[in-house]
């Protein structure tokens, strides 16, 4: 019974546009979700305690080697998933929760409010993301919440812009005018007509966004502005590891880097798949 | 008068969802020099597809079968190179929407120069002279050569399109819904223009439209299309006074007029069949008032009633 349900879900995902991207992206992310949830069970060692000789290359005991403190890279990498995903998802959701309603309201109302807000958002948007995040992170200081806030700030304009533009184009559609003629309130129009039209786009942006947020977080940590040690964090480990590259301790850089690449790939593929899945539907009209 | 264009079992198909949709499914007809042939039908009947197939302006992946003989050459078999020489020079086409048919960043004169010099080797002055002449013939002052498309009204743009089509004196002009997106009075003006142009330039015209009033007043012969097939061909007066095919009869009964004595409009139930899966029998069968048993299972042959009357219906054998 369960198998059949799974099978039909499987087919539903794979068939149709973007199916392969969705499938591969989904599988990759599934692996990371497993890491996230079951980190304490998967990681063989405590990630913040030295458990072996420093600079040990990958062996059967330490399958990804150890770092300069003798900590198990594999365990650090597994636990690092928690930081990466937590910060990225929190930041993305925060940005969405701020940007989307602002975009909806601004796009629907128009007028001076819209013009001013758009100008502000455009200014933030045109500022190089990482630099802005660095500036804000430097101001706020380290810590998961602060990092998430600084990352969220650079993404708010993305949601704002996309939603606002969609609202503008849907607003002008005849079926919205028809709804108004029926006596629908602005609230109803926003919810049932405009928001429904905006949702597919938002989903696509969310997944692309998370991918980007992970990179940004890694970047911040790499520069020392992110999560303070000894918390396992891929970006920090990258930064830490690259100091010892000349010693040929490649595993300290390679594995955290690999994680970053894979998870970004996963989210990007998911985003691409969603985009292809929704796009034909959008094109149909 | 000779036969200018002859189609034999012409089929035109589009690739849809991995299958072929035959929008034109085996049509045969002749167009004589000097004719204005009206090609009428409702949306989805295939008339526009047939129109663009004359110049093989079909999207990639389309299929075209059968034969289409123009001036002794089979257009279906010609190469793209050879076709390009014919387009605009021997066969020209005007489309429905003059708003989007002209390039917004090119001046009117540039449209003409480009068209002319693609086909014949003349100097720019000569090309301009030719353009001015043909523009005057359609009622546009030659000063308009310096204008851009957005400076012209809808009616003016359509006149420019007609002039562009005629500047190289083609033998055949295909007009696909040339007046549909224009206002009523401008429509009448453009139709007048098309009629006068036929005289002045001696061009044969195929007029594609859904408007029976237009073909009644303009065409000397009419072909009625339904679901990818031509169901009736007749001289205009005979088609209206004694239509043969049940669809033609139904269509005529549904056309509104401004005559106050004409009080009833007869509608037609149902809709045309899905051409991805055409029925085995007559395509009009489900909606036909005069249907017989044989109509359900077998697609009728074309019957020649007289020299210029053809009908595709089991009632006439």
């Amino acid at each position, binding site marked *: 019974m369960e198998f059949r349900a799974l099978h039909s879900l499987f087919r539903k995902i794979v068939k149709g546009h973007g199916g392969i991207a969705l499938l591969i992206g989904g599988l990759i992310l599934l692996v990371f979700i497993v890491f996230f949830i079951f980190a304490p069970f998967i990681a063989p060692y405590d990630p913040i305690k030295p458990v072996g000789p420093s600079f040990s290359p990958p062996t059967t005991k330490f399958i990804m080697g150890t770092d300069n403190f003798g900590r198990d890279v594999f365990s650090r990498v597994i636990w690092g998933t928690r930081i990466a995903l937590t910060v990225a998802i929190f930041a993305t959701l925060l940005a969405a929760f701020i940007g989307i309603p602002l975009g909806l309201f601004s796009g629907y109302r128009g007028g001076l409010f819209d013009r001013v807000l758009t100008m502000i958002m455009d200014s933030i948007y045109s500022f190089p993301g990482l630099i802005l995040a660095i500036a804000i992170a430097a101001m706020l200081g380290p810590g998961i919440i602060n990092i998430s806030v600084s990352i969220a700030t650079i993404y708010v304009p993305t949601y704002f812009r996309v939603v606002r533009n969609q609202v503008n184009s849907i607003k002008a559609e005849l079926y919205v005018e028809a709804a108004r003629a029926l006596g629908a309130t602005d609230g109803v129009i926003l919810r049932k007509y405009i928001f429904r039209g905006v949702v597919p786009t938002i989903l696509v942006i969310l997944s692309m966004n998370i991918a980007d947020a992970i990179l940004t977080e890694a970047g911040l940590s790499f520069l020392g502005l992110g999560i303070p040690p000894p918390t396992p964090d891929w970006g920090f480990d990258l930064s830490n590891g690259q100091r010892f590259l000349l010693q040929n301790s490649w595993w300290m850089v390679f594995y955290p880097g690999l994680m970053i690449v894979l998870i970004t790939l996963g989210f990007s593929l998911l985003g691409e798949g969603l985009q292809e899945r929704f796009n034909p539907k959008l094109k*149909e009209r | 008068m000779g036969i200018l264009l002859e189609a034999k079992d012409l089929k035109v198909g589009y690739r849809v969802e991995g299958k072929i949709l035959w929008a034109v499914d085996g049509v045969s007809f002749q167009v004589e020099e000097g004719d204005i042939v009206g090609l009428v039908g409702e949306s989805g009947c295939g008339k526009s597809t047939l129109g663009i197939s004359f110049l093989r302006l079909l999207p990639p992946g389309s299929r075209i079968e059968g034969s289409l003989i123009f001036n002794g050459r089979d257009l279906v078999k010609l190469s793209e190179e050879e076709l390009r020489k014919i387009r605009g020079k021997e066969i020209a086409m005007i489309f429905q929407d003059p708003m989007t048919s002209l390039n917004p960043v090119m001046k009117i004169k540039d449209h003409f120069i480009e068209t002319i010099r693609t086909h014949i080797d003349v100097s720019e002055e000569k090309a301009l002279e030719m353009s001015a002449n043909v523009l005057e013939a359609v009622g546009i002052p030659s000063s308009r050569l310096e204008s851009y498309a957005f400076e012209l009204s809808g009616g003016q743009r359509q006149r420019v399109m007609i002039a562009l089509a005629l500047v190289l004196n083609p033998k055949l002009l295909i007009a696909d819904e040339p007046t549909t997106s224009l206002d009523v*009075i401008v429509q009448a003006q453009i139709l007048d223009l098309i009629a006068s142009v036929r005289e002045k330039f001696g061009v044969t015209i195929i007029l594609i439209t859904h408007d029976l*009033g237009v073909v009644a007043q303009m065409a000397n012969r009419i072909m009625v299309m339904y679901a990818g097939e031509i169901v009736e061909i007749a001289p205009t007066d005979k088609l209206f006074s004694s239509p043969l095919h049940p669809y033609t009869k139904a269509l005529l009964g549904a056309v509104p007029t401004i005559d*106050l004595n004409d009080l009833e409009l007869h509608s037609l139930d149902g809709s045309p069949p899905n051409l991805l899966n055409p029925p085995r029998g007559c395509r009009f069968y489900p909606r036909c008032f005069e249907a017989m048993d044989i109509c359900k299972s077998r697609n009728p042959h074309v019957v020649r009633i007289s020299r210029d009357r053809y009908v595709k219906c089991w009632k006439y054998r």
Partner: protein
Amino acid sequence: MRMEALLKVENLKKYFPVKKSFIEELFTREKRFLRAVDGVSFEIARGETLGLVGESGSGKTTVGRLVLRLLDPTEGRIFFDGEDITSLSGEELRRKRRNFQVVFQDPMASLNPHMKIGEAIRHPLVIHGIGTEKEQKRKVLEMLDRMGLVPPESFYEKYPHELSGGQRQRAVIARALILRPKFVVADEAVAMLDVSVRAKLLELMIELKREFNLTYLFITHDLATAKYICDRIAVMYLGKLVEIGDLKSIYTSPRHPYTKALLSAVPFPDPKVKWDRFLPPGEVPNPIDPPSGCRFHPRCPLASQECSKKEPELREIEPGHWVACHNPLR
């Protein structure tokens, strides 16, 4: 005002400001307007169908939207069922909307592509809080059945793109009528449908008019179609009403040269009938800069000196037949 008038429009005007370029904004003071509707007055009696006829730029579509209060008039008044609704807004206007509904030209565009047909038709009932969910669904199924969209349960679940043009327009009509409005504005309601389907829809609209006791404003450019459903015809040109009268007088003895031109421009679907065209030269001028005096005078074969100087008023030339012309026909 006649007691039976359901809709009365008085000197209705709608001017749209024309956007100026940045330079113009800086250096010129005067504002330019597009006078889409420039002083239109008429009445529609209860149970009547008034055809509002005109070409592009005539303002007929704008009048439709003004009457439905989808636009605010620049000047003038609108009375519905004896009540002045010109400045109604907000909640009051919303609630009043139950009484007047609209059917637009493009059924695909006026239906929300994300909403099932059944939900779309149920929507007005939900908006105005009429009935329980069960009752609402029942009403929708009834309506679908009445519109010939059978089986209704199956059509309830379909999306707009799964229906044909004629079916979609019927769904739109169902949605408009489910609130039992008194008045319906049909804005080129059948223009996008095939000829064979058009007749069916006109037939339906005429039946519904009787059944639901409706009053229609039928906006169209197609004089041939208007004939089958309208009782009276009003002709507009460049924002002004040039002629208004009952069906018979307009079609057999039009008095305004423009009306005559419009009628004669329709090609008759019978080759035996000689097409006597009475075509004015040129096209409808730009509504931003309309001609002085009578707006039609530059194209009018009967224009006199007076026509270019003085705008003609609507005068009752025979009972029930009004013309705005200095030299009316015959």
